[in-house]
């Protein structure tokens, strides 16, 4: 990637923000204008994300980030020294693959939202501000702006859920907001302390990563980052906002939230935690593994008990994010590659799940699994996609989940064989709850109550196809991802092969 590609990174934030601004100026009644604008904008984001992913090639010469572009925002004033606060963009392999994930998920999320009747314009304004925040977190390499965009990604969530959500939406929205903001407290504190400890008067990430930091400092503040970002990553036991939030969020928000935002949390642990404080990371890695395996098992066992499809997916997400934390805790490159792959894989298939559940819920206003039966006869296309998502989720070879989980399992067996064994056991539990749901809801006798249901809409089919293609691509040909992720990881001090 050249410096010129940095403009694409910048555009990844500017396009959704600009779209939000243009939407504000569009009259609410002009539905076709809103649809056209968002169609164009989401497609542009997808193309740019793909471009960033394709153009990123690891090279040993430059620094940690590629496509670096910086504008000084403020320097040499008060507490700030040289390069104090900069608007600085750049990606590494991890950022590039998550940018691609976001670019893929945005497109179907936009498509399925067009059927919203109530205040469509306001919905897209908030949704695109959220998307800008997510892209910002993945491409910004200045800690001040990183945190700013992190919060930008969280803030619209409250109104998105509280206005357009379902079941207990106000409660879900407020709980989610307050828990995520409580998480920010820890991140806030860690950022302040890091800036002060390094003492270079700059929020530039590259400077902060390469600067000398004492071991005791790293050991003290690493857990703060993990707790802070862990809330957003739905890390057990900080996950309790997540099932409630998912259950009440509108479809597109669930998709982006489970698909992308939770990854922002895990990404924060990587970037702020492991990259900035590797010694602290090494010290706390075993704890992370324990938390990860507990989360994976707890999420899977809880999912066994759920009957609401969205709640089931919420707990399933907690379980799958548990794998991510196991992968990070292995502190070896294969486990970490698996963790980043798992972020992408889980993002794609959860987005697909929520898209499908939303498409059905909008007609039936019911998500209770025991109420359904034999849906395969009534909605065959919907069922096909659902089965594909389930198989990806339980780790069928050839689909995205498999490749990620295999990496994590191998990494875990290398570091902590017992954990590796438990993780495989969890995969079996995952298969149980998913297959049981399929058997109950999709196959068997057709429940006559649902004869009025139609197949999902054309836009939903198109969106599901996009996600399904991505799931297959990652499952069948993972090397573009691995080639980008692994080299970025092995440069972190202390990581073993």
């Amino acid at each position: 990637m050249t410096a010129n590609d940095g403009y694409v990174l910048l555009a990844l934030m500017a396009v959704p923000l600009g779209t939000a601004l243009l939407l504000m100026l569009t009259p609410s009644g002009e539905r076709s204008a809103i649809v056209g604008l968002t169609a164009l904008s989401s497609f542009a984001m997808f193309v740019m994300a793909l471009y960033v992913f394709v153009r990123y090639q690891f090279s040993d010469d430059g620094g940690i980030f590629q496509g670096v572009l910086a504008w000084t925002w403020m320097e040499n004033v008060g507490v700030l020294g040289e390069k104090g606060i900069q608007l600085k963009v750049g990606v590494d392999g991890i950022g590039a693959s998550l940018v691609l994930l976001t670019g893929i998920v945005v497109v179907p999320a936009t498509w399925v939202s067009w059927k919203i009747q109530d205040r469509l314009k306001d919905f897209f304004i908030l949704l695109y501000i959220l998307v800008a925040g997510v892209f910002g977190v993945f491409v910004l390499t200045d800690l001040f702006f990183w945190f700013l965009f992190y919060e930008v990604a969280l803030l619209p969530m409250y109104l998105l859920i509280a206005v357009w959500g379902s079941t207990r939406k106000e409660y879900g929205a407020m709980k989610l907001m307050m828990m995520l903001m409580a998480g920010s407290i820890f991140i806030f504190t860690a950022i302040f302390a890091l800036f002060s400890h390094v003492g270079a008067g700059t929020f530039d990430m590259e400077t902060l990563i390469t600067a000398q930091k004492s071991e005791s400092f790293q050991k003290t503040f690493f857990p703060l980052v993990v707790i802070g970002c862990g809330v957003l990553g739905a890390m057990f036991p900080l996950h309790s906002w997540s099932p409630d939030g998912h259950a009440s969020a509108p479809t597109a928000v669930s998709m982006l939230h489970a698909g992308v935002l939770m990854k922002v949390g895990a990404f924060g642990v990587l970037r702020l935690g492991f990259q900035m404080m590797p010694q602290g990371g090494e010290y706390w890695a075993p704890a992370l593994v324990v938390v990860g395996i507990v989360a994976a098992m707890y999420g899977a066992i809880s999912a066994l008990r759920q009957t609401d499809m969205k709640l089931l997916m919420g707990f399933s997400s907690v379980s799958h994010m548990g794998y991510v934390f196991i992968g990070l805790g292995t502190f070896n490159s294969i486990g970490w590659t698996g963790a980043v792959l798992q972020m992408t894989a889980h993002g794609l298939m959860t987005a697909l799940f929520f898209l499908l559940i939303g498409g059905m819920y909008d007609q039936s206003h019911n998500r209770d699994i025991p109420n359904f039966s034999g849906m395969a006869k009534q909605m065959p296309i919907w069922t096909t996609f659902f089965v594909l998502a389930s198989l990806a989720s339980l780790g069928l070879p050839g689909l995205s989940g498999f490749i990620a989980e295999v990496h994590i399992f191998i990494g875990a067996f290398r570091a902590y064989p017992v954990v590796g064994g438990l993780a495989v056991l969890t995969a079996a539990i995952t298969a149980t709850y998913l297959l049981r749901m399929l058997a109950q809801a999709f196959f068997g006798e057709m429940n006559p109550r649902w004869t009025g249901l139609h197949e999902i809409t054309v836009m939903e089919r198109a969106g599901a196809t996009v996600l399904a293609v991505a799931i297959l691509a990652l499952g069948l040909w993972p090397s573009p991802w691995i080639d980008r992720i692994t080299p970025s990881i092995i440069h972190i001090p202390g990581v073993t092969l």
Partner: protein
Amino acid sequence: MTDILGNDLNMQYSLLLPEILLGVTAFLVVFADLFSKELKIGYRLLPLITVAGLVAALAASLIWADTTSDFAMLVTVDSFTTFFRVLFCIVAIVLVIGAHEYIEAHVNHPGEFFALLLLSTAGASFMAGAQDLLTAYLAVEVLSFSLYIAVSLGRNDPRSGEAALKYVLLGGVASAFLLYGLSFIYGVAGSTQYADISAALGGDLSDVRGSLVLGLVLIVAGLGFKASAVPFHMWTPDAYEGAPIPVTAYLSATSKAATFALLLRWFSGPLLPAIDEWQWMIAVLATATMVLGNLVALQQRNIKRLLAYSSIAQVGFMLMALVGISQITAGGLLAHLGGYLITNLAVFVAVIHFYNRTGKEEITDFKGLAQTNPYLALVMTAGLFSLAGMPLLVGFFTKFILFQTVVEADFLWLVVVAVVASTVSLYYYLQVIKQMYLYQPDGDATRWRLTPTGYLSTGALLAAVVVLGLWGTPLYEVADKAAAALFPVA
């Protein structure tokens, strides 16, 4: 001219031009009001004269933007003074433009009201520039007396008189505390000049340590009252609720900022050598203010009381910067003060226009505002989110800088308290936002628009909140320059 000790004194009256202009305008307004019948002057001329005087004072303040000079060793004009003069003029201008309809409809004696506004602004800028304890004390009283009266000017509202009585009684006690404390400092240092006090307190104080500490306690209590720091905040919610809304806005803006100007002057100058004696007091005050202000705000039903507690909480954040005072923390404090003033005014002007239209001020009255007046709802939301320190708005940036400077001064624990408190604050701000966006307006509510001056004032404030949020550099640079004036390179 020379003083009694034979020192040459600089009696350049032009240095005080902004305050002189404010005073003259105040008299003009009163006379215009007094002879309004004879001269056939309508109400509309009064705010015009006021704004003209304020703009002139603002322009005059900028003449000395880069100089450091003092008037007879009583008042200094440096970039710190200029910072506050400009800030106070802007606050008053915006307030007059944003609230003149309210003042016409809901305030007794508008002429006097405008005059009091001008006089208190003059008092506030003297507080920022004073170099002598007595000058400072007189400035405090000019500000306070104007406000005692202004609080009582609410028309047809019994709460106004009650609020004024409470404010004047407690304010009088606080002034007594302050003056008593100052007399101890004079006793210890033997002078009322800041420079002399600083030199005296730098020497051996073991004999008079008791008097010094007693004096400091009294001063902190007195100024704690003026700044409404916990536990001296009791008057704040009642006075805020009872006062006409523009006065409430003024109390939360200029009055508070002026107190911080004074605190900064004293704690960075004359009282700095005694930092070991007062540091813990401010730390305790800051912690209590942050915690209590935010927790009590959670239970409020009235928007003015909510904003009262929210402003108490903000005072806690700002006090934090005094604990480990240095040029860096002072710069952070001034930047946050600027951001807070703009944001708070945006919210208050929006509330004023809401009240003009509906005559209501409970939080639940805001329900459905996003549908009846989406623009005003947007201004309120931006303001409240900025107060909570949410990104892309000025509040995020200034709070971030303020907290970082306090961490630099090695008070990480205070910042942790502050960040937690700040998160709590989001909850009660969200309650207002929830009413506006989630609920339907009452059946008979129709869409309505603001007056042209309403659009002008809220538009300017909204633009400032957003633009400074995206590009806060000018604000921080000016604040840093002002802070540098407090710590001259020896």
